[in-house]
């Protein structure tokens, strides 16, 4: 039966090539535009570290003075250096990492390669464990290295290749901002997106290529990039006692009980700071896991959401257009339907037949739409945005595109097919 309906659909569609092409293109463009924008939204809203995102928490404290206080305000996004260093030393979480972003000049010491700048991260030993950093050679530094500000570095494969010509860099020295550091680990290509642990250097930024112990970075006064917020005058905003927030602090906690225990610890810590007069505002502690943190910081650009809505609006117009065209097409065939009904076809059969025709249009439109989405994503990748290269069609989105196209066309076919099968055979036969 289906084969017969398909044949009928083919004949019907071939009879009116212009109209058929119009309907197919309308669906294709609607689906293509929607899927392009939805794929971008999907990749930007994805979980950067799905295996652990519920166990990693960003810490926020409220260290500011009372001036300008408003009830219900969120604490700053980052910590003061003093708080972060105290918390990492206390070590009350299962793992904890203090960190900030920076840039450093690398001097390869080769005549063929002039000094160049790379992005870096100044952090503590647990960082690599917490964020599942993939080592191809060597290891992370130890807590002892943190304590003694050891002159060591972990570098990315890309940097090892560039400076040493291979990933075999363990034990070699690399000159960072004029100081020789011993390479103790090499990381494989690694770029979780969004760049969740520090959104101040761009939500979808480049990966860091050099990692240096926090204590070492402070001794060497390595540069800082990201945001610094101060609420009191200070000659050096990166100094230990400065009233400035610019440090990120992450902890790893398994289970609600430990999260609560750590929250209680942070509240206790804040209370204590209050007592000694360092904190002025009411205690305000926030622990957000990775996805909560990304949502709170609104990493998905609002332009991308806006584009998705525009595309869906466009799809809706395309859909209504196709409904209208299918309706006129089916009604135009009233006499043919009348004949089939008179020859014994049930309403149901007519309905299914018309739906098959609508489905065929959707299928072709969907395949075309998939192609257009692929083209659209190709165009997005050439856009001047930081997330451009992330715009790739993955398997779930491929399936979703196809589902959307089929759903769209069946939805578009439903009303016309229902109206079409209402044709009364007697009237149609009489009038012709």
């Amino acid at each position, binding site marked *: 039966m289906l084969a017969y309906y398909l044949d009928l659909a083919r004949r019907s569609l071939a009879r009116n090539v212009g109209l058929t092409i119009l309907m197919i293109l309308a669906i294709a463009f609607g689906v293509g535009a929607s899927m392009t924008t939805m794929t971008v939204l999907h990749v930007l809203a994805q979980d950067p570290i799905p295996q652990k995102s519920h166990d990693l928490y960003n810490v926020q404290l409220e260290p500011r003075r009372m001036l300008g206080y408003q009830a219900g305000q969120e604490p700053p996004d980052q910590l003061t250096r003093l708080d972060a260093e105290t918390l990492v030393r206390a070590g009350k979480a299962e793992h904890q990492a203090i960190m900030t972003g920076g840039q450093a000049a690398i001097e390869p010491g080769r005549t063929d390669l002039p000094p160049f*700048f790379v992005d870096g991260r100044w952090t503590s030993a647990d960082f690599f464990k917490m964020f599942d950093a993939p080592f191809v050679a060597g290891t992370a530094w130890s807590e002892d290295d943190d304590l003694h500000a050891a002159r060591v570095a972990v570098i990315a494969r890309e940097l090892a290749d560039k400076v040493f010509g291979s990933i075999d860099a363990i034990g070699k020295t690399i000159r960072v901002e004029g100081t020789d550091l011993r390479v103790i680990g090499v990381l494989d290509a690694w770029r979780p997106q969004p760049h969740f642990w520090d959104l101040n250097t761009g939500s979808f930024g480049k990966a860091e290529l050099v990692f240096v112990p926090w204590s070492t970075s402070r001794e060497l006064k390595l540069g800082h990039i990201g945001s610094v917020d101060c609420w009191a005058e200070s000659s050096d905003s990166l100094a230990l006692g400065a009233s400035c927030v610019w440090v990120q602090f992450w902890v790893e906690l398994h289970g609600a009980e430990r999260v609560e225990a750590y929250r209680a610890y942070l509240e206790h810590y804040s209370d204590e700071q209050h007592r000694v007069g360092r904190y002025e505002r009411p205690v305000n502690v926030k622990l957000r896991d990775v996805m909560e943190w990304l949502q709170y910081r609104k990493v998905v650009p609002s332009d991308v959401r806006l584009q998705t809505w525009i595309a869906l609006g466009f799809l809706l117009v395309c859909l209504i*257009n196709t409904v*209208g065209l299918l309706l006129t097409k089916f*009604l*135009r065939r009233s006499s043919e339907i009348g004949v089939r009904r008179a020859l014994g076809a049930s309403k149901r059969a007519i309905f299914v037949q018309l739906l098959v025709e609508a489905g065929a249009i959707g299928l072709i439109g969907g395949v075309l739409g998939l192609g257009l989405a692929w083209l659209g994503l190709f165009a997005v990748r050439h856009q001047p945005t930081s997330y451009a290269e992330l715009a790739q069609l993955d398997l779930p989105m491929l399936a979703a595109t196809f589902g959307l196209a089929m759903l769209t066309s069946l939805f578009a076919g439903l009303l016309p097919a229902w109206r079409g099968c209402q044709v009364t055979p007697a009237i149609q036969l009489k009038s012709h």
Partner: protein
Amino acid sequence: MHFFHILSTLRRHKTAAALIIIEIALTCGIVSNAVFLISDRLARTDRPSGVVEDELVDVRLTGIGTKSDAAAVTAQDLVALRALPGVKAVSSINMVPFGNSSWNTDGSRLKDDPNGVSVGQYMGQGIIETFGLRLVAGRDFQPGEYVEFAAAQANPSILSSVIITQAYATRLFHDENPLGKQLYLGGKEPQIIVGVIEQLTRPTDGDVAEPGSAGFAMILPIVLPFTGGGHYAVRLDPGQRDHFLATVDATLAKVDPSRIMLEHKTFGAIREGYFKQDRAMAYLLIGVSLALLLITALGVVGLASFWVQQRTRQIGIRRALGATRGNILRYFQLENFILATIGIALGMVLAYGINLWLMSKYAVPRLPAEVLPIGAVLLWVIGQIAVLGPAMRAATIPPAIATRSV
């Protein structure tokens, strides 16, 4: 004339008529908002910087490690750059308009004011001349007012004077004369306003909630080493620009080779980079709007063709009864006009609703009423163009059709 006649015909084709009305309404609603967003985005890209854009080049560089002789090297750099052909002025500064780093602070007439107004902080020597800014009141800094960067960092209160933009002056002092007034910038002591410049934008968009705050900027009399700012703003004769860009690296390397040249950009390139995304969004919206109008037009063509075909006999009878070709043509045109008008009326309500929703979610400004007629006229014109083909085909139906039974 045909008005009631057409209405009664449409009543018999409720579903098809309703669909085309909905399509026109949706298109009108979306396109009106799109037209507004496009003009909003493109207007943003025209934001004035206040500086002589076609004469400026931004040279960025940085040192390696901590440098003790940065101030001396900077002074030598400036001398070397000024000696290059075509160069009119050079300043070592901390940021440039539309650049990717931004220094801001809160300023107020009062000490420790929690409601200070955010302002962009330019630092450097001779900025007014290098940027080509226009002083509208007061004076430029005198040589004795400049303070070394390190000293100003250790104690911001040693700065005695400041120059602010007219926009910022109006925001803080309204109609009062800002000259000689005190301005607190988070320090213990205030700075005195000695000059007002006509216009200078800060690198960022400013505060979204405060229109015009992108123009809130000031200049502090600070002598900045290249390690503090990293920007050399160079004002030069545009004709010498290519030669300058080709020789600047070597010139600076001759002064001190142990530095990394980051990039040099003409001001046009900086502006282009800053507004790239707005322009991309505007082009995308233009594309979507055109596609929507095209789809709607094709929908009108499809429906009208079907109606013409369906009413072939009816048209033949009307022709046989004396209706002219013009009558038939105008009948279909009027029919389309009625459908479009209902659709446009609904579409305007929809446009307003979409705008309200966008305002609540995406910080989009209110839709100005002038945009609505643009959407309406667009859809009327497109509807009339789309219906012309089928209507002319209808007009050519001969009266003899009436006598045939299809």
